[in-house]
């Protein structure tokens, strides 16, 4: 349930904020910054994905340890801007409807390629958890025989992804590519990430894992899809793009989208689904970037995205800065103490997420932190969780202080016509 959500009448802001004037920022300026930052983040995600695509082409053309490592490095770099865009989910339907194509997680990777025997087979929830398309030129889905003899972007997008209507049948996006570059991480909560050998892409007798040509075709097709998908979203936030227009046409609705994205990502998604649940399951597969052991960075840049959205400032991959009128300015004008509370809590969260990065870079990987009974790991992860939960409370407070809860409220169907729903 998204809460502070769309459906908007105007008013409230002007009412609430009319009093403390002087060089005050306006909602339209704030949402313009928000849209400009989105455009820059998706453009950066696109260029880094294109670099990844070139690296994948080099890997498949000439498989070697060097080309494999180069492709992995390009994937890691591509995650930096992308994770910072996640704060645009939840509040923006255009992003939310699209997101599953690029960053769906968790995945039953046995759908795509070979897995270790410990992975198991079909589950209660997913009959195709171990389908292994790369080894199967012909597959049967929901009683239909599917020709998978050539692995194309269309096959992945239209047939394999979410096959059987199951969300964990993730056939595309960053995590499918991650699996094809790293392979399963079979080290459990011990040190080490996935160790897929470059020979999984070598043609002929030297091929390991079988079907190297099909694996290369899959990796190439999935990377092509990622680039295409990111092009679409970069366009949506560019001048006159639909996602930009959706937030700028009605700036109050745009502010609600901003706060909804910040709160939903902080609480339900990152603190809950991605961090605390994995910790409580003690399962190394319950980490966001489980094949590459890059989870510490994914969490960090997700948190940074929330902070960007509030402060109206983003550092691009080339080092240049996009900044402008911010929510922080608006809140400071209405209630300086509340702005200080928000900036302070965002800082606290970033310090906690930064500590996870530092520990991981020092050899204490995120999956090791999830180990049963590992008190140090639990303390690191829970500090991040606590920070995210705490900042969500302040995001709610801001929504109320700005009068945005009442705006969202006035637009709800049930209140417009309470009797309609009982007919």
């Amino acid at each position, binding site marked *: *349930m*998204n*809460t*502070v959500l769309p459906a908007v009448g105007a008013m409230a802001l002007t009412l609430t904020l009319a009093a403390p004037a002087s060089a005050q920022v306006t909602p339209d300026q704030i949402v313009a910054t928000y849209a400009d930052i989105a455009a820059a983040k998706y453009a950066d995600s696109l260029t880094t994905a294109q670099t990844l695509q070139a690296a994948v082409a080099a890997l498949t053309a000439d498989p070697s340890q060097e080309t494999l490592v180069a492709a992995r490095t390009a994937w890691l770099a591509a995650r930096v801007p992308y994770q910072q865009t996640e704060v645009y989910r*939840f509040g923006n339907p255009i992003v939310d409807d699209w997101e599953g194509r690029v960053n769906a997680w*968790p995945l*039953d990777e046995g759908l795509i390629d070979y897995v270790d025997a410990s992975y*198991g087979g079909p*589950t*209660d*929830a*997913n009959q195709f958890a171990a389908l292994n398309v790369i080894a199967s030129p012909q597959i049967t889905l*929901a009683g239909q025989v599917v020709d998978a003899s050539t692995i194309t972007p269309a096959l992945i997008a239209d047939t394999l992804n979410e096959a*059987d*209507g199951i*969300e*964990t049948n993730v056939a595309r996006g960053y995590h499918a590519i991650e699996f094809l570059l790293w392979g399963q991480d079979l080290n459990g909560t011990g040190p080490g990430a996935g160790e897929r050998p470059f020979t999984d892409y070598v043609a002929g007798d030297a091929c390991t894992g079988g079907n190297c040509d099909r694996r290369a075709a899959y990796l190439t097709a999935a990377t092509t899809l990622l680039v295409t998908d990111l092009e679409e979203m970069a366009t949506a936030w560019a001048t006159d793009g639909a996602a930009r227009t959706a937030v700028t046409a009605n700036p109050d609705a745009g502010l609600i989208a901003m706060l909804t994205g910040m*709160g*939903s*990502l*902080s*609480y*339900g*998604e*990152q603190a*809950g*689904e*991605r961090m*605390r*649940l994995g910790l*409580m*399951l*003690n*399962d190394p*597969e319950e980490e966001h970037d489980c094949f590459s052991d890059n989870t510490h960075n994914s969490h960090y840049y997700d948190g940074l995205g929330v902070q960007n959205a509030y402060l109206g400032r983003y550092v691009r991959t080339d080092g240049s800065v996009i900044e402008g009128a911010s929510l922080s300015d608006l809140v400071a004008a209405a209630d300086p103490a509340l702005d200080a509370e928000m900036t302070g809590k965002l800082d606290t969260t970033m310090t906690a997420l930064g500590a996870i990065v530092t520990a991981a870079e020092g050899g204490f990987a995120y999956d090791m932190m999830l180990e*049963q*009974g590992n008190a140090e790991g639990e303390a690191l992860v829970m500090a991040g969780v606590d920070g995210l*939960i705490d900042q*969500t*409370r302040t*995001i*709610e*407070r801001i929504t*109320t202080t700005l009068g945005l*809860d*009442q705006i*969202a*409220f006035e637009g*709800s169907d*049930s*209140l417009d016509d*309470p009797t309609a*729903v*009982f007919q």
Partner: protein
Amino acid sequence: MIRTVLALSVLSAAPVQADVSRAVTDHILPGFAQFATHAEALSATAAADCTPAAVQPAYQAAFDAWLGVANLHIGPSETGALSIAYWPDDRAFTPRALTALIADPASRDPATFAEVSIAARGLFALDMLLYDPAFAGYAAGDATCTLVQVVSADLAAQATALDAAWRDAFAAVLTSAGAPGNATYMTGDEALRALYTQLLTGLTFDADMRLARPLGTFDQPRPRMAEAWRSGRPLRNVVLSVKAAQGLAHALTDTDLPLTDAAVARVEVAASRIDDPAFQTVTDPQARLLVDVLHQRVAAVEVAIDTEIGGALGIAAGFNALDGD
């Protein structure tokens, strides 16, 4: 005179007053106490005889009691609820974790059991151990029987701790909202919004998870995605959860809630028409239709509460745990 005032107040739809203290005292704390009592009884039962036939009734009673407070995910329940009821389990962690515990005696040491994966703890671990053919064929003395005792004792310990944490600490945080030094709820409205959010989120969970998942699509219903289907609880869980929401709604406000009560009554009627309480017959179009009707009725309760409480008090729900994917 009094009569006149009453009549006027009804006519002018007197502003609804919220009562967080009453919700805590009359609804929440008794709910946790009751769950603790039943969880302890379950543990005692399992300790005496851990075979499925002996333990199942106590498990059912404990699950019933849990639904009185399962919608609450704040304070001690923010994390505490997760290790009591880990569901859904789309990646089948529960059977894998239980299998590992059965194979390794050291891993099920009661002293350290609170550290094991939540997939192997709480009510859903028992659902599988006591009802799934892959586990429930055990006899007294088997490793699985011991594991049932350990899981039950751990559940009782969790229930007792949760009861105490609410009673001795978090109840006061809610009821002292707005007082100096209360950093969690800075105003009375914040505590009210927190409870209101729990109320609506619980109903959303009923509709989106407990019902929409097994309903699937018309062409592809998914009976195995029903909650606790092994122990035949899907329908009962929905009804008890909705009744708990109704109870909290009444405790939270001082006026009649005719729309809400009528909507809940419709839920009960819809529930009474469903033959299979486990929702395993949703593959039959007729049976699926009846579950679909129940789904709509539950959604209508949410709207009624939104109108009668949210609208009357001028509050919107805050963020909740279902906001993610």
